[in-house]
């Protein structure tokens, strides 16, 4: 999916091809391409992780991915952005998420890359379940919990800060 700014945001079920998205953000006018790859770990505390299962609220996730791209563009001069999240079963050691940003100079793309993955973890409705040798568990991003004070504030009845605010 390509937005107004040429930003590419996608939710895919197949393996993420780094080269493909580096080429998406590659531009003759850009002297820098920063990328972030999130990969799945094999252990959680003392439990061995067999695989991860991701699911997304597709329409809302894509909309919020486009929003965080817009916010990044308002903060830094960026040439192109690509954000891809994989859903379904993701094996240990495989990429679940990719952020690629290009800019004329390196600082803008490096800062934007970090900002985008942080914002994704705080506001984009995607969920991950870790499957262990014994049992499984839905994970929770600290970025989401801290932003919304969810421990004490019931949803839908007010009081929490706006998660969509960035």
């Amino acid at each position, binding site marked *: 999916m390509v937005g107004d700014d040429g930003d590419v945001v996608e939710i895919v079920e197949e393996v993420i091809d780094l080269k493909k998205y580096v080429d998406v953000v590659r531009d003759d006018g850009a002297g820098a391409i920063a990328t972030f790859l999130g990969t799945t770990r094999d252990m959680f505390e003392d439990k061995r992780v067999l695989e991860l299962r991701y699911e997304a609220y597709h329409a*809302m996730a894509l909309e919020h991915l486009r929003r965080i791209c817009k916010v990044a563009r308002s903060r830094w001069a960026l040439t192109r952005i690509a954000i891809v999240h994989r859903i379904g079963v993701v094996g240990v050691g495989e990429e679940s998420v990719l952020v690629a940003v290009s800019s004329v100079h390196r600082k803008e793309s490096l800062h934007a890359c970090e900002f985008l993955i942080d914002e994704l973890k705080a506001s984009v409705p995607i969920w991950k379940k870790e499957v262990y040798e014994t049992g499984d568990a*839905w994970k929770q991003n600290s970025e989401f919990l801290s932003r919304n004070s969810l421990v004490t504030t019931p949803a839908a009845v007010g009081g929490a800060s706006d998660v969509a605010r960035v």
Partner: protein
Amino acid sequence: MEGSQQEYVGSGKEKVGEVQALLFAKAQELAGVSQITLEIQKGWTTANCFEAVMTKYPALKAIRSCMMVALNHDYVTEPVAVKDGDELALIPPISGG
């Protein structure tokens, strides 16, 4: 969740429309459904819809304090009026990345 069925929640009172409520991740597992059609009444807000879902699926109360609500793809933090055709989502703590 594959094979999740859809449910219908009606009140029998004055109906002014329907809202689709979507459940994800742990919320979907606890309720056993992925989508609920809610009959809304005059003056209803997201909070009324949320409570209607809690009442119909008490298992969700285990995570009620840690869920966010989204209305038509926007997170809402205060009760917002709903209208026929709206899409409400119960958002358990997210864990993308």
